[in-house]
């Protein structure tokens, strides 16, 4: 019995491969650019989870005013670009501290009854603790509500994440940021008025 002949492998000529690569590269670049630009107008996953929890919690129809997100690439590009510009040391320290950040602003439509702040805080807590976050600060005073969350585990000084919710009775702001607070804290501690400010804060 003769072995069946192996069909010859047809290889694309190298020139054709180059042609395909040349054609696909701009398309891929456009897709990456599109995704990058689109991601700039969507909140990051952490802030999105917080937003989602709050939206589902009550009967309030929040109106989105703006949602911006700057990922590592965007912030890195801005930092690299601004490294040639003479900046205020405080601004430079802030820029060095932030790795990525996102912010969403939501408005309460006029005529909508005020949402219950305690319910909002509970909803935010449920959403964030479900993702492994812990609330560090919660403040309610008058119409204002502020909550600050940090991850419950794997907290690192070089990559500290935090999520902040602020509601002033009309607008709700959600902020998520990741960064290294060291440059900013070092800058603050070097300020001549730091001791006075610390004293002022301690006396409050």
């Amino acid at each position, binding site marked *: 019995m003769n072995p069946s002949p192996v069909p010859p492998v047809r290889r694309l000529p190298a020139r054709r491969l180059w042609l395909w690569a040349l054609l696909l590269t701009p398309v891929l670049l456009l897709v990456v650019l599109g995704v990058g630009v689109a991601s700039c107008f969507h909140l990051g996953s952490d802030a999105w989870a917080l937003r989602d929890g709050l939206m589902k919690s009550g009967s309030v129809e929040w109106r989105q005013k703006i949602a911006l997100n700057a990922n590592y690439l965007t912030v890195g590009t801005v930092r690299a670009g601004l490294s040639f510009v003479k900046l205020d040391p405080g601004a430079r320290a802030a820029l060095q501290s932030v790795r990525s950040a996102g912010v969403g602003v939501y408005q309460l439509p006029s005529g909508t009854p005020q949402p219950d*702040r*305690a319910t909002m*805080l509970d909803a935010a807590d449920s959403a964030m603790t479900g993702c492994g976050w*812990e*609330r*560090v*600060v*919660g*403040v*309610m*005073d*008058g*119409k204002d509500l502020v909550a600050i969350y*940090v991850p*419950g*585990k794997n*907290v*690192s*000084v070089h990559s*500290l994440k935090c999520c902040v919710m602020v509601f002033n009775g009309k607008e709700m702001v959600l902020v998520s940021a990741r960064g290294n*607070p*060291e440059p900013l*804290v*070092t800058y603050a*501690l*070097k300020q001549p008025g730091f*001791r006075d400010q*610390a*004293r002022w804060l*301690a*006396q409050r």
Partner: protein
Amino acid sequence: MNTMIRYPLAAAVLAVGVGFNVLAGPLPGQVDFGKFTPPGDGGQFVEVQVNSNLLSLAAQVVEKQQPDAAKLLRSVQLVHVNVVGLTDGNRAELEKRVRQIRHDLDAQGWDHNVSVQGKDGQDVGIYTKTRGGEALAGLAITVIQPREQVVLINIVGDIRPEQVAALGDKLDIKPLKDVGAALKDASPKEKAPKESAPEN
């Protein structure tokens, strides 16, 4: 054979570890104030809970600039603060609850170091739980400001009064100096008989 022994042994160690973890209660100087309901009508409500992860991170951040502050931060395991505004609806319940917390602290063997009854009805209680002869395992402060709010503070760790006082001196922050001095007085080595001093 080795594997036959190793795996069950590892499982047993793990089970014991998990068991201890489950049985492990709160930290020695920790006080459970319970959950507070925010007052209605836009009343004030503040809740701060900073655990050792974040405190150690803060210590790392300030290490180079403020080594004393970093040392103090490292010695603290938990900071818990509750501020609840008093309204007609919650006043009686909250005041009763704070008095119950004080009663529980007394019953659990905490030292009641300072008790101040202010002219305006302000009622402050400072309690400490000692660790060994030189440090405090916990500090609990309860404040009732009759027409305003109740404040509950619990600091847990291995707090050395001299550290607090030294930091207050270094930064020239009077309240911190005062707290350091009060803690020094409250520390077991130098503790005087408990005083209950009405404020004049």
